[in-house]
């Protein structure tokens, strides 16, 4: 029996135009993209290619100037900033290159943050955040502040924060950019494992070996999709 699954992401002829003084910058020039639930996509491109802009739009931090972006069937172009905030809270987990943890705040509280804005009871927030930290292998480090953690550990806290709210989409922007090889491996392993469990992961990177973890590679150049190819057959988790 064929199960019809709506694509998680549908982009249709998206343009993004900035005005910087008198200069008009076309960051995106007609991007169309469809990503199914459970995919592991790497978006590649040199700096200035427009990949960060695409990432911001996919993450509902920004809206396209033209065209449409449907996330899970909802057209984000028509939403107000508070509604976008709610979508980010419910459906999207972010992992940034520079970790972006709140300073002088414990790992547990950093991981709690999305649940805090969801208004969950404190006890539940703590339990879920502790579970998420355990999931990324940081059990026993709950009370450590970011400065007491290594780069790799900080990024793992960030991943715990991204997945604590069980989002449908995990957006990782150069997640290994500030890490050594060993830590990079660990982070990519975690992301791969999450994808194996069915989470949609979009990875923005310019490193080929990082992109190699993904099953699909989208290359952006000058605000347009230059190539879009499947690099690995999707591995289906056996339900045995």
């Amino acid at each position: 029996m064929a199960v019809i699954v709506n694509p998680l992401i549908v982009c249709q002829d998206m343009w993004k135009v900035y005005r910087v003084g008198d200069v008009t910058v076309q960051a995106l020039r007609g991007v169309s993209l469809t990503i199914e639930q459970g995919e592991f996509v790497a978006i590649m491109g040199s700096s200035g290619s427009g990949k960060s802009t695409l990432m911001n739009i996919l993450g509902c931090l920004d809206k396209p100037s033209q065209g449409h972006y449907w996330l899970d069937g909802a057209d984000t172009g028509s939403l107000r900033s508070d509604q976008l905030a709610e979508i980010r809270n419910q459906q999207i987990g972010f992992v940034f290159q520079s970790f972006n943890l709140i300073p002088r705040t414990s790992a547990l509280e950093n991981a709690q943050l999305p649940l805090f804005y969801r208004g969950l009871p404190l006890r539940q927030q703590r339990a879920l955040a502790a579970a998420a930290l355990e999931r990324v292998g940081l059990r026993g480090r709950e009370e450590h502040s970011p400065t007491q953690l290594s780069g790799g550990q900080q990024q793992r806290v960030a991943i715990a924060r991204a997945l604590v709210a069980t989002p449908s989409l995990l957006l990782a922007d150069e997640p290994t950019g500030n890490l050594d090889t060993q830590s990079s491996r660990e982070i990519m392993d975690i992301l791969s494992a999450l994808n194996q469990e069915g989470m949609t992961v979009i990875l923005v990177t310019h490193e080929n070996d990082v992109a190699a973890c993904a099953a699909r590679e989208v290359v952006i150049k000058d605000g347009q999709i230059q190539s879009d190819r499947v690099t690995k057959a999707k591995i289906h988790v056996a339900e045995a």
Partner: protein
Amino acid sequence: MFTWLTIVTALRILRRNRLRAGLTLLGIVIGVAAVIAMVSIGEGAKQAVQKQIASMGTNVILIWPSGTTVGGVRGAQGGAVTLTVGDAVDLKKKVHVLTDTGWYTRGAMQIVNGSQNWNCSVYGTSPSYLTIRDWSYSSGGAFTQADLDSAARVAILGQTVVENLFDHGEEPVGAAIRINNVPFRVIGVFSPKGQSAQGWDQDDVVFIPYSTAERKVLGTQFLGSVGAIAASTARSEDLETAVEDIRSVMRARHRLQGEQPDDFTIRTQVDMGKVQEGTSETLTVMLMVIASVSLLVGGIGIMNILLVSVTERTREIGIRMAVGAKRVHIMTQFLIEAMTLGVVGGFIGVLVGILAARLTTIIAGWPTIISSDAVVIAFIFSVAVGLFFGLYPANKAARLNPIEALRYE
């Protein structure tokens, strides 16, 4: 839930920057403390004035002769002698709201006790005048109607006179003194009343019976003429009707025609108090305004520190927005921080203000009254100041663009 956690977060953020938060608080603390201390001093001054007014006696009406106009030349108030003992007696009979009337005549005289001498005001009064003006005695007592009838040579001395005529420890009551070379026996000493509202020493007086003064010491311009008449009513509400009744009785007695002006002036204690109270009221308002300005400056301090905080934590705000904080969340966070500064500053300010007021009383000896109204208002005001000056920074934080905020270095 959200609010509570935000308060906890705000407190932690403030604790993180203890010195900075402390210095910011200082502005509010000084503002609130100033308001409370100033109002306490103002209230204290007001009560001191009220006490002074009360020292004149309760529900007192005073009647003086008016200035005279002779051939177009106007004399000063009290210059003419138009009031008589007869007026006073008649007023008591005809104006029913009056409980009593009294009268006095006055002159400056030389008082001698042994080798000491002193010059002061000598009042020849009716015994009723003493009760109307509410004099009390530190030793001895008042003269009586019998003393008045017999023109007895008895005197009551004020505290200042006693100090100047008697050695320390010497008992004045029973002593023989001479007033204008007439021998008198001291029968009482007044309790000190202190300075009058007009600034003269109310204790620098000697009281003798009116009849004695008239016949033996001061003399009068004509038989039964008095310097002023005092009257009292049982209730302060009766003062107004009493004044009206007194005026008509006096006009009839003095045979004044319709057009002629009064040849006397009536003043009540309320009239006399008004000026003084107005002064201290102005003082309180002025102190309050000055103190409010310092509270305002404290508020600007809060705004300043929050603006710094918003800039410093731009990235944090970006992170919070990325994980789903709505504008109202960010706004609330900063407002609560501002209000926390207001609440904590207000609380400490109240304590410091009360302390300052107490110290003012102890060190400078000024009377202060800590009014609970001022405490409550100052506290609410400090929280409101925090809220008001927090609005702009909080709004600025909430309007940040999450992308730019995340990229902020």
